[in-house]
């Protein structure tokens, strides 16, 4: 029999993992450099299945990495670059301390640089992989773009993030890829469909900057460094695929804007960017064909669904087409411009507010004037004055909603999250119910004008009312009958022996419940925990729903009392 005998922790799980300290020792890096390397290369700790086996019998808490990952890191060129950087800093410090200006300038000129291109290629072999990781990338880039230029963060980094995010937004507008918007108290969530990948990102509200507490900006910068490079590569690919010129240029040389430079007006998101001149065949694609291509499904239901989806997306892309918006000065410009332009509208604002304004308030062709204050003097009759929430709600509903609920000074209907898809048993807010009804009505008959819709809605309400009225008398009649019986019983001296009513429904229910309880008893131990876990979570959920419903009822009662 050959081979030496393997000892206890020399094979299996114990050898597949490596603790962080060991990894650092093996790679001969400082903790900071190791962190940077992990962030760049996307290496993360893993949770071993059997911790005790991995830790040689001890149960102490430790961070483990896959041994293979560490081995993979050890071959990386970045490690060499980090060492170079370390030497660079050491040399520079020495030169500065010796006041050797010549040497210092020489060293500074030869600052080592590293490329993250190969890292990106390695992490995302295909473009779709990169898009899947775009959420976090966009989130962070938007955060950095919103930072003021202080000494804590390199100004170049902020500028770079700003340009990258503007580039991306221009792509989304050009491709009309935006699908959902949600204004939350944390910020604005956007969801876009980029090459079939659903990408969601959040942008904070543009208010004053407050220096964050308990945040390590160095770590954020490492991430930002990586993500800004990634976003640049993604942008150029998206631009070239969509026949756009990269870096973005204004399509119309804006003669009437004399003083502003192009960069500022690009940042305002209002102007259209230049294409390479190739034919865009996006406009005339047939949604049905698209759907068929997209899904090689045998299930007719799925095909039907995707067809509907494609149709509604097409509608969304031309939602604001032909409408001309004007933003009053208190309205946050960039968010609304982005959404309106994704829906095909045109936007402008007062010239004095910032770059990118193309027409003024006096323009006669303006259809919607967005204001966010209770009233406005000198209102014009040829345009609709409306609150910003209307834009978001229209976009999410994918139709032009009736404007009367959103007039200035009027409390708007609740703004609901478009990301929630209520399942059976979930709590559905009243407005969502209304919204779903509207959608269903539309599906039946597609080409509807706004007014018709509103009238139809009124009809709907009428119908509801009438149906309620119908229901009410029925109930009444029942009650009457019951009352009559009881009266009879009272008047008669001798009563017939009434057959005890057996509520069959209830009996059946009871029996079923009992059966279920008995069945629960017989669940094998293996599944018992799982079963109870599921049931408790369901119970919790149903309790929450109940609570919401109760609250709603209470509010309703209050309103009625008033």
């Amino acid at each position, binding site marked *: 029999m050959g081979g030496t005998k393997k000892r206890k922790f020399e094979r299996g799980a114990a050898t597949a993992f490596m603790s962080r300290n060991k990894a650092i020792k093996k790679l001969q890096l400082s903790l900071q450099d190791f962190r940077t390397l*992990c962030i760049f290369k996307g290496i*993360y*700790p*893993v*949770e071993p*299945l059997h911790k005790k086996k991995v830790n040689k019998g001890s149960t102490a808490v430790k961070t483990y990495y896959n041994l*293979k990952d560490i081995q993979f890191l050890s071959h990386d060129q970045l490690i060499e670059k980090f060492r170079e950087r370390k030497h660079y800093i050491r040399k520079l410090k020495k030169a500065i301390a010796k006041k050797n200006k*010549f040497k210092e300038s020489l060293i500074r*000129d030869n600052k080592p640089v590293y*490329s*993250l*291109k190969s890292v990106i290629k390695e992490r*995302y*072999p*295909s473009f779709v*992989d990169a898009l*899947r*990781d775009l*959420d*976090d990338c966009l*989130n962070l880039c938007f*955060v950095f773009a919103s930072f003021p230029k202080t000494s804590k963060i390199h100004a170049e980094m902020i500028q770079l993030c700003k340009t990258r995010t503007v580039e991306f937004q221009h792509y989304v507008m050009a491709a009309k890829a935006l699908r959902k918007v*949600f*204004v*939350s*108290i*944390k*910020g604005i969530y956007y969801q876009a469909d980029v090459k079939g990948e659903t990408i969601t990102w959040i942008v*904070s509200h543009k208010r004053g900057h*407050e220096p*964050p*507490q308990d945040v390590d900006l160095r770590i*954020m910068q490492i991430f930002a460094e990586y993500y800004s*490079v990634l976003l640049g*590569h993604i942008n150029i690919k998206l631009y*070239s695929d969509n026949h756009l010129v990269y870096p973005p240029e204004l399509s119309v040389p804006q003669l009437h804007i004399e003083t502003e430079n192009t960069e500022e007006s690009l940042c305002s998101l209002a102007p259209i960017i230049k294409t390479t001149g190739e034919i865009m065949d996006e406009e005339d694609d047939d949604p049905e064909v698209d759907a068929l291509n997209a899904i090689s499904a045998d299930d007719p239901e799925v095909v039907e669904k995707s067809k509907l989806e494609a149709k509604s997306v097409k509608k969304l892309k031309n939602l604001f087409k032909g409408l001309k918006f004007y933003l009053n000065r208190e309205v946050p410009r960039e968010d609304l411009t982005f959404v309106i332009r994704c829906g095909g509208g045109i936007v402008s604002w007062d010239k004095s507010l910032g770059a990118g304004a193309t027409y003024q308030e006096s323009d006669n062709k303006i259809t919607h004037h967005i204001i*966010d*204050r209770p009233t406005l003097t000198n209102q014009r009759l040829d345009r609709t004055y409306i*609150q*910003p929430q209307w834009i978001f709600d229209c976009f999410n509903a994918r139709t032009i909603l009736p404007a009367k609920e959103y007039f200035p000074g009027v*409390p708007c209907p*609740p*703004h*609901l*999250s478009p*990301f*929630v898809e209520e399942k059976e048993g979930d709590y559905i*807010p*009243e407005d969502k119910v209304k919204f779903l009804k509207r959608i269903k009505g539309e599906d039946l008959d597609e080409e509807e004008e706004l007014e018709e819709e509103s009238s139809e809605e009124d009809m709907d309400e009428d119908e509801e009312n009438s149906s309620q009225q119908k229901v009410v008398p029925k109930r009444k009649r029942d009650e009457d009958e019951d009352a009559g019986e009881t009266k009879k019983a009272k008047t008669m001296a001798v009563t017939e022996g009434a057959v005890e009513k057996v509520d069959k429904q209830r009996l059946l229910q009871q029996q079923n419940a009992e059966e*279920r309880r008995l*069945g629960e*008893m*017989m*669940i094998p*131990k293996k599944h018992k925990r*799982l079963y109870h876990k*599921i*049931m408790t979570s369901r119970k919790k959920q149903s309790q929450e729903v109940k609570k919401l*419903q109760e609250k709603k009822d209470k*509010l309703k009662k209050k309103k009625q009392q008033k």
Partner: protein
Amino acid sequence: MASRVSMVSTKLKQATNGKRTLDLDGEEKEEQQLMMKNHVDDVDDSDDSEDSDDETADENEDSSSQDEVYEEEDETSEDSESEDEQPEKKDDEPEKHVDEYEYDSSDEEDVRNTIGNIPIEWYNDYSHIGYDVEGRKLLKPEHGDALDEFLQKADDPNYWRTVVNKMTGQKVVLSDADIETIQRIQASKHPAGSEGLYEPWVDFFSNEVMNMPVTGRPPDKRSFIPSKWEKQRVGQMVHALKMGWMKPRGEIRKMKLAQDPNAPSLDLWKEDAEPEITKRYRMHIPAPKEPLPGHAESFNPPEEYLLDAEEEAKWNDQEPEDRRMNFKPQKFSSYRTVPKYGLFINERFSRLLDLYLAARQRKMKMNVNPEDLIPKRPDKKDLQPYPTKEGMVYKGHTDMIRSISPDPSGQWLVSGSDDSTLKLWEVSTGRCMKTFKMEDKVTYVAWNPNPAINLVAAVVGSDVIIINPGLVDKLVCSNTDNTLNNFEDSGESSKSVVVWSSYDVEEKDKGFRIKVSHTTAIVQFTWHNKGDYFATVQKDGNKSHAVLIHQLSKRQTQAPFSKPKGLVQRVSFHPLHPYFFVATQQHIRIYNLVKQELHKKLQANCKFISSIDVHPGGDNVIIGSYDSRLCWFDLDLSTKPYQTLKYHKKALRQVAYHKHYPLFASASDDGSVIVSHGKVYSDQLLNPLIVTVKVLRGHKTANHLSVLDCKFHPTQPWVFSSGADSTIRLYV
């Protein structure tokens, strides 16, 4: 110019010292003093008053002339045409220079007065005023008395402009120029006069190369020798150039911009290139996406999503980690009024930390329908018949009923209670037929399973009392009595650990027949299926006579185990074969009584066995335990439980099989009797089918005890249960 000013100032000083004070501003005095200090050496030339006067005048002239010369020179330098005049004037210069430097020499100070810069008042009392370089006294010149002074004042027209040089004591007559200067100073004007104040600046050190040197200073040696340091610097630069470290200014920056390694490029993801799917790539666990926001997070949520006072208080009390939502829902009247979210950056940051610090694990998230986890139940009709509801309650005892037993025909029921009575009940009517008063609590009762012999055994303390209840057919009763009386006494009773004794006539009339007295309290009693043998378990479990087997017909007792292993809890006979089950706390041992050997040992997998029952077929055993478990053993299958059921919440007290129907029941302290369907197939390959069919409740809990015993009706699918609430219940 400077020299002239200094001269004036010295004279001034002299004037002040000579008490011919001129009204000067304080500031100017200071200035003068300062100047004086600087040019002490200039003062010295006035050893001889007249000479010095002349000299000073000359000097003034000289200096002015010199100035002129310089001026001319300047002009010449500017006008390159008048080159001819230059040499002539240059020739004059050296002579005047000699004069100038004669008095400028610092050595001459010592020649005249060597006392240095001390207050001259110190010499007021002496005739001399100092010492010359050779140490001779310098005598004060005679000034004459006040009369001379007065006369001089009258005679001398220059008296008003005569001052005394303090250092030498000489009188000095100020020149017109000096007086003018003084007057200018008094008028707060520039001492040199207004002319020539704003002369054009001559930039000597300009970029234009002059023909003549500005100064006559000979060039340094170092200007002829190449610099060592420059050489080193050049060397460094050449090296840097060679190595490519140094490049012209600006070029490096341009190069860096042009060759930014991270600049966006299209060659990263080419259309045609097949992505390289490595093993690493497949092993990658992508970070889970962040959850999407719900309605509650909206800036204008439906009102029911806002927290009410109670919820808000709860939210505030909770630790941030425990909160279900990490934000408080809020409602804003307009989009404009929504403030910035304070923790926005913190949330982003914590996400980043999660990305690189959080350990990842691939978890299979099963989409389980909980209905699927419940084992499939056979149709209810297939399981029937089983007891479903309470049919009868037998009341009469006054204390908890520890044990019950139905008779083999199913017509009667016997019960033993803590109120020291044994009662016989008619099952169908619930009537108490007979009551036997005992000496102590009745802990165990058992009806003889043989229908031909009508006997009831009761355990009272350490005695087993055999009773003939006399309820059935008289023939059977007399038969029973006959068999009891027809025993063959082997005479070994003296050796035995138990005492068999008969009752006297009076007692016999009541029904008592035999008393088997043990040494210690009896825990359990069980009949053999044929009704001749019975076994008892005594409390002192580990002694040799813990388990005893008695034969009724011979009135004999034997202790089958010399020393049982462990504390014996329960024993049972096999219904068909000569096997004997002994349950200790955690094990069940099956002994072959014929071969007198251990047949099998079962592991109960529970802590403390409380009851045991053997299936009428003999191949299956159920046990109940105090740790609320019920274990079903299939003896053919394994020594470990075929199925463990933990459906009771509290300790089990009794388990029982039905004689004919595939039913078994378990009684527990939680107040319930659970009836299960347990079908045993005759086919060896099929495992028993165990399904719970009914939970029967009815007994009340008293003193943490509830149901103490349960037994099946021998023929009907009914179950009796007795409890701590001193009732017996029949479920039909």
